[in-house]
């Protein structure tokens, strides 16, 4: 299915990156390409939240899962595991796609978040995100897989990205419609 470019939002010492237009019934699937998201604070987490049509604030109810595969630069450590601290059970926090991010100037998170049928007023809204970054402990390539649903049948028309602590120093979110 072809991708149709919609918009780019670029961070520059930003507390959050909010996209409040362009998410509607035009497409049944939206992709958010998160490119070189660099934190201003060491060892923090990057995540996203949604706002429903007519709602106030980025605080929708999310149930999610997250697991990761990891391997370090020293070729001495590998791992595959679920990360309980980063999932949510009907929670309203920003959903993590990374945690304990390294802050070095050449290190960042990149990945793709897919949101399905945001304008449906029948079904909850499913999302899947996969990406990679460098874990602050031991130079690990950390590959995270996040999935879940926004537990509302109201249409979702806004999304926000932010760090759990500190600004987003740099990076871009490119939004595409699929189909």
């Amino acid at each position, binding site marked *: 299915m072809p991708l149709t470019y919609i*918009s780019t939002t670029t961070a520059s010492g930003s507390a959050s990156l909010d996209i409040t237009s362009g998410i509607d019934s035009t497409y049944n699937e939206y992709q958010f390409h998160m490119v070189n998201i660099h934190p201003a604070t060491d060892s*923090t987490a990057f995540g996203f939240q949604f706002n429903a049509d007519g709602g106030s604030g980025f605080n929708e109810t999310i149930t999610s899962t997250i697991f990761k595969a990891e391997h370090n630069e020293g070729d001495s450590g590998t791992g595959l595991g679920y990360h309980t601290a980063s999932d949510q059970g009907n929670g309203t926090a920003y959903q993590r796609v990374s945690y304990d991010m390294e802050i070095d100037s050449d290190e960042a998170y990149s990945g793709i978040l897919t949101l399905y049928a945001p304008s449906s007023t029948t079904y909850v809204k499913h999302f899947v995100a996969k990406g990679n970054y460098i874990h602050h402990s031991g130079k690990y390539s950390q590959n995270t897989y996040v999935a879940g649903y926004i537990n509302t049948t109201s249409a979702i028309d806004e999304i926000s990205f932010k760090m759990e602590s500190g600004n987003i120093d740099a990076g871009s979110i490119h939004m595409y419609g699929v189909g």
Partner: protein
Amino acid sequence: MATLAEWKTSLRAAHSSLTKNVDGVTITLSTDEYNATIDGWAQASFDKEVADNIIANGGESANYAQYRRDAYPSIGDQLDMQYKDAVNGTTTWKDAIAAIKTKYAKPS
């Protein structure tokens, strides 16, 4: 380790104002947004410091299961320890697991 209040004071000193990017436009946070953001950052930083301290030094935590999972040797290494214990009559595997369970204690 800094208190939550100390984190808030420190973050306010470091950021006299904050901005966000909305649909490509940079906007200065309102006072309410600024306060909520600083409070959120302070809470996250405080919680992270508490967790890092427990990971390093051990202690009771509601997240004890995650800390134990991260600390246990790989399944392969545990099987190797059990094989050597069986051959040599040692208790290396049992001791290693017990040490991790003791370090990351379930809240009483």
